[in-house]
Every structure is written in structure tokens, then in C-alpha cells.
């Protein structure tokens, strides 16, 4: 841990509170999220993006290459743009063609490598890739906005600001693959490199570069320059579905690390006794920005819109309590967090992100702890008494549920043979539950506890010899005892489970905002909205919750 100074802190929020789906599904991006972390790093290094190849024709098809140095290495985005018939444009994993395809390449690709990538990247999952290909992605044009922007520029005008505001991006990625998929480089290959050692850094670099390419492409097609304020507001869209949700279950130590970092940052902010004038000023500015952001965040989903509306009503009320006098009292952030508890969970989580934002000096170094070099390991030498204690302390909620009831076992997670698309089935209405993915963690732990109850005077190793089927659950229980934020503390097969809560939590850690849920299963989001453009890395520290025309 590079963060050697130990600032004052208060106790962290308890995992039993933080790790509930309803709260995870209310998460907001923070300055600790991965994309802002990456951009601060690029800025600190004085990195410059160069467009070294632009072989794009008048219709906008062809390829381009962008290179950027980071941590002593050079990376290149190879962007390939091809014609896509309108009826093939789809957000789904089962799509087979896209407007654009991308590879983040380790180094600068030769002409032959470019040729290979141009041939293979548009095929995505159907092709095989090389270890120097670090990330594979694709993006489709936003039908709502892309052509409008091109047409406006061609007519010598800037695009309609309200339409830019409504969509917020020119293209939407529908997958960003890293870590070995389809033969691309394993994360282990780059995990020790400065700048890419944090989680999803290569993926974040890719989406930020893609966003810049989408700007260049509309300017190329429109034959004119986009207004800088508009351009900055155009992030990169993303459609994310179920496939992202199991990651949080299959990477418990990463989940713990992310939560520990955010909760530690919050605890440090709460332990600040007095705000400086600069910090007070900053909070005042951010308070207005949050209100503007909420005002501009409009979605079609009725339930999601109701939540945003409530946030719009609650935010000014909370801010009325966080006035100049409140900010001058001792421990004002702690008081703010306490005050937020009388409002919705959405507001509480927004307040967490708000409370952390001005304290870069205090919290930014914590992002070095976002990655975990460890993997969960079983300890067969643990005595049964200690193990039973861990079960009772951390899993009481799971042991209390009745998984034979329809309500507590209504859903099953599975992978479809159709392009391996992850799906969620209804156990009592659909076939396939015999092949369900093991996301029924709570049920597994209860089954373990049940068999353990029948076991007397044996060691854990002895128990495992009789019950090898509980090896996985035992490891999870032991992991949670050491890493308290490693598990979602909800039944993921219950009728009430909403995968979108898991997606939002993970996407907020990426730095996504403007969540636009399309069902309980998938959401659209915007990344890098308000983020610095390629030539603006000197302002990489202040774009939390973007507002059009700000900064």
C-alpha cells in the first residue's frame, strides 16, 4: 500500500448495511472510480494522444490508429469502421455485426498487424486474437444523435444542444472484452505495469480513446469542428446486461477491495474536523452541480424516473442542512452523512460520492488498493468452532431463508448456448435449472450449515472428506471472515433479486453515470461524459457528475 500516511478515520459503514443489493443498486461514481483514476494518471504523466493513422473514407469507413504512452509503455487503439445495415444494429450479445470495432494494442501496430486487426476485429467473438491485443470492443452509432450531429456540421451549424444533452454520446459500446477473452492478452501480462495495474484500466483506456475517435469521426463526416463544450459533453455510451453481474460474485476479493477503498475514503472524509475555505467553496460548487446533473438526468423507465424525481426533491433539502453554518461546525461531513440517513438510499449514496469528491489529497492514493493480488483460499486447518462462529456472524441472513419456497428460489442464472449469452430464468416456469450457474451462494451456505450441524468432533478437513460438495461454500465463508465486503448479502435467486443493482454497483466503480435502465436485466450508461478531451488532460481532476457547458 503506497498510501503510507494514515489519516484520521471513523469506523467504516458496516458490510451488513453496505452490501445489500438495494444499496449497491443506488451507487454513484466517485473520484475513486476507475476512469477518473486513469485520467488523473495520464494527466500526471503529461501523456499526449497522437492520431498516427487516419484511413477513413468519405462515407466514414476505414481505420484509424491512436497511440498514447502510459507508465513507460505505448498503447494503440486501432479503430475499424464498417458499413452496418440498420436492421443489424443491436445492443445484444447475440448480435454479429457492428458499426465499429476496436482493439487496444500493446505497442504500435505494424502495417501487417493493422491489416490483421482490421480483418479480425469486426468479427469480434468469431475471431481469435493475439496476446498483444489487450482489449477487444465494438460500438454502434446512436441512431438518435450520430446522424444529427453529422448533418448539423455539414450545414455549417452546431448540433442541437437539447438533443446532445438528451443522448450524451455518439456511439454506444456493447462489449468491452479484456483478460484473455478470445486469445487476447491475459491480465497477468499487464497487471504489473504502472498505469494498468488497477482493475479495468486497459478497458477504461480503450473506452476513453474510443470516445475521442467518435468525436473525430463526426467531424470528419461533417467537415467541420464541434464546439468544445458540446464535444466534452459527448461521452461514450454503453449497454450492459446480465453478463457483468456474476463478476461481482466470482471475484469476491476485488469486490471487497473496491468497497474497502470507497468506505475508507468516506470514513476519512467524515473524520475531517474542520473544512478549509477552499473545501467549503468546493462543496458549494459541487452542490449546485449535483442539482444540475439531477435535473438533466431523465430516463424512460417509470420506476427509475421516480427515484430520480425523489432525488431532485431531497437534494435541496439536504443541502439546506449543509449550509455555511453547518460547514463551519466541527466534523461537518460526518454530520452530513448522518443527516442524509433520513432520506432515501439513493440520496444517501449520492451523498457518499459528494462527500468524498473534494478530498483528493486525502483519498486518491487509496486507489492503489483497488486491485487485489490474492485469490480466495481454503484453510482446512480451521477448527470447526471458529468456522461455525464465522457462519453465525456473517451469514445469519442466508441461514434464515427458506429456499424451498417459490419466492426464495424463483430465479436461476444460466448461460445460453446461443453465443454464451448470460440469462436469467424463472425456475418454476422454464427449462434449464438443472444447468444453473452457481450464483445461489446463500442457498449453498445454508446447505453447508445444515450438514455441518450433523457433524460432531471433526476437523474441517475431516468434514470435507465426507462432504466435498461443500468445498466452495466453505471457502466463501472463510473468505468473508477475512474480507468483510466480499459478498453481496442478499439471495441472488430470490424473486426480488434485481440484477440491475449488481450492474449499477459495478458500473459506478467504472465511473459510469446517467444510468438508464431498460429493464431489471440491463441498462444503458454514459462513460467519460464531461471527461477531458485528448488535449485537455490538464483538467482531469474535476469532471465528477457532468453538466453540459460546465467547466
Amino acid at each position, binding site marked *: 500500500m503506497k498510501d503510507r500516511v494514515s489519516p484520521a478515520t471513523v469506523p467504516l459503514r458496516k458490510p451488513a448495511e453496505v452490501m445489500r443489493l438495494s444499496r449497491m443498486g443506488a451507487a454513484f461514481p466517485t473520484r475513486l472510480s476507475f476512469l477518473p483514476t486513469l485520467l488523473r494518471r495520464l494527466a500526471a504523466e503529461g501523456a499526449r494522444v497522437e492520431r498516427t493513422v487516419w484511413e477513413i473514407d468519405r462515407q466514414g469507413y476505414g481505420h484509424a490508429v491512436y497511440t498514447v504512452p502510459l507508465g513507460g509503455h505505448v498503447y494503440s487503439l486501432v479503430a475499424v469502421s464498417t458499413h452496418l445495415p*440498420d436492421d443489424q*444494429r*443491436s*445492443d*445484444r*450479445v447475440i448480435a454479429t455485426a457492428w458499426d465499429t470495432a476496436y482493439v487496444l494494442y500493446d505497442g504500435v501496430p505494424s502495417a501487417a498487424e493493422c491489416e490483421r486487426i482490421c480483418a479480425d476485429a469486426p468479427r469480434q467473438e468469431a475471431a481469435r486474437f493475439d*496476446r498483444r491485443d489487450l482489449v477487444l470492443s465494438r460500438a454502434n452509432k*446512436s*441512431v*438518435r444523435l450520430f446522424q444529427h450531429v453529422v448533418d448539423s456540421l455539414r450545414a455549417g451549424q452546431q448540433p442541437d444542444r437539447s438533443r446532445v444533452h438528451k443522448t450524451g454520446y455518439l456511439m454506444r459500446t*456493447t462489449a468491452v472484452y479484456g*483478460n*484473455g*477473452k*478470445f*486469445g*487476447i*492478452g*491475459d*491480465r*497477468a*501480462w499487464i497487471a504489473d505495469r504502472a498505469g494498468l495495474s488497477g482493475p479495468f484500466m486497459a478497458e477504461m483506456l480503450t473506452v476513453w480513446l474510443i470516445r475521442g475517435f467518435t468525436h473525430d469521426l463526426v467531424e470528419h463526416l461533417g467537415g467541420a469542428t464541434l464546439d468544445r463544450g458540446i464535444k466534452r459533453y459527448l461521452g461514450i455510451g454503453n449497454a450492459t*446486461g*446480465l*453478463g457483468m453481474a456474476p463478476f461481482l460474485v466470482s471475484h469476491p476479493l476485488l469486490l471487497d477491495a473496491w468497497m474497502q477503498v470507497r468506505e475508507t475514503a468516506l470514513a476519512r472524509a467524515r473524520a475531517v474536523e474542520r473544512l478549509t475555505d477552499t473545501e467549503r467553496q468546493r462543496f458549494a460548487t459541487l452542490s449546485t452541480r449535483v442539482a444540475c446533473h439531477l435535473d438533466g438526468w431523465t430516463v424512460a423507465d417509470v420506476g427509475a424516473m421516480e427515484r430520480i424525481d425523489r432525488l431532485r426533491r431531497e437534494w435541496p433539502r439536504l443541502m439546506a442542512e449543509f449550509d455555511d453554518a453547518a460547514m463551519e461546525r466541527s466534523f461537518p461531513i460526518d454530520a452530513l452523512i448522518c443527516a442524509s440517513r433520513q432520506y432515501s438510499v439513493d440520496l444517501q449514496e449520492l451523498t457518499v460520492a459528494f462527500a468524498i469528491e473534494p478530498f483528493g489529497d486525502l483519498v486518491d492514493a487509496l486507489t492503489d488498493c483497488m486491485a487485489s493480488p490474492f*485469490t480466495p*483460499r*481454503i*484453510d*482446512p*486447518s480451521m477448527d470447526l468452532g471458529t468456522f461455525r462462529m464465522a457462519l453465525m456472524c456473517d451469514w445469519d441472513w442466508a441461514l434464515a431463508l427458506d429456499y424451498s419456497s417459490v419466492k426464495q428460489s424463483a430465479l436461476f442464472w*444460466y*448461460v*445460453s*448456448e*446461443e453465443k454464451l*449469452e448470460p*440469462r436469467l*430464468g424463472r425456475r418454476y416456469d*422454464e*427449462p*434449464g435449472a438443472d*444447468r444453473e*450457474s*452457481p450464483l445461489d451462494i446463500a442457498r*449453498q451456505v445454508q446447505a453447508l450449515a445444515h450438514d455441518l450441524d450433523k457433524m460432531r468432533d471433526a476437523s474441517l*478437513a475431516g468434514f*470435507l*472428506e465426507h462432504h*466435498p*460438495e461443500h*468445498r*466452495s*461454500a*466453505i*471457502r466463501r465463508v472463510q473468505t468473508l471472515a477475512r474480507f468483510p465486503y466480499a459478498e453481496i448479502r442478499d439471495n441472488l435467486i430470490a424473486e426480488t433479486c434485481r440484477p440491475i443493482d449488481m450492474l449499477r454497483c459495478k458500473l459506478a466503480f467504472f465511473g459510469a453515470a446517467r444510468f438508464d435502465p*431498460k*429493464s431489471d*436485466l*440491463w441498462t444503458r450508461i454514459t462513460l467519460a461524459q464531461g471527461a477531458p478531451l485528448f488535449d485537455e488532460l490538464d483538467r482531469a481532476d474535476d469532471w465528477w457528475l457532468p453538466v453540459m457547458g460546465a467547466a
Partner: protein
Amino acid sequence: MKVARAELYAQTLRAGRGAGISLGLAEELAEAAPWLSTKGVEAMARMLYEADSHGVLEQMAARLDRIQMGQNADSLAVPLTLMQAVAAGRGFGVEMGKRRLKPAAAIARAKPGPVQVSKEAWTCLTRLAKRTFVPATDASRASGAGAGADGD
């Protein structure tokens, strides 16, 4: 053929589940991916594919528990290279003593980069992995994530 270590991890986990071994063992085999040699992958794929070997694989996990606790354990009909990779995934090592398996230093991780696997081994793993996939139906397709809002 060459596969990324992360691909080997994912394929092994699915293959283990498809083969019907315990989830915990499937996870431990998958976590051996960074340490597995070409021969280790072959041995693992063969043992997963042959249902008769599943009991031996489960015993391997139990014996590794004993070795992890510093004890010796009876030998098993599992290639040492596979056992060492699984042990390394768990953070320790194992070696063959005069007659019994005994604790040792963990073997070194393979160099980062893809691993060479035989076509036969990969085919075995792929066939087993397929057993975890659910056949598509019109209904499941229609209710999948991303459905219903294309092209806006």
C-alpha cells in the same frame, strides 16, 4: 493451439461443472490455470472427461488439504504435475517422498502468456463445458438482456 490463461480458467471451471465434480474442486482446478503445463492440461482434461476418474480428483483435493496442513498423504493416481499446479493455486507445494506425498515449496508460476494445449484436451474441455449451457428457446431469447430497445 494456444489459449490465454484466463480462457483456460473459464473453460476448466465450466468443464468441471459440466463433468459433475464438486464446485469447489472445479474452482481449484480452474485456479491452477496459471501453473498448468501442456501436460497438466492434458491430464486434467482426460480425468474430467472420464467419469471414473472423478473420485480420484475429489480425493486429490482432500489429500492436498492434509498436505496444506503440513501432513504427508498417500499417493494417488493423479500426475504430479497436475497436483502441483492445483497446490500452487492454493499457495503451497507438494512433492513425492519415498512413498507418500509430502509438503514442499510451491512450483513457480508459468511465464505470463498463452499456454499451448492439445486439440484433444481442448475438445474434451469444450464438450464438458457445453453441458452447462442451456439450449435457447424463443422465449429465453425474447427475455434476454438487451432485448426490446434496439437501434435508438
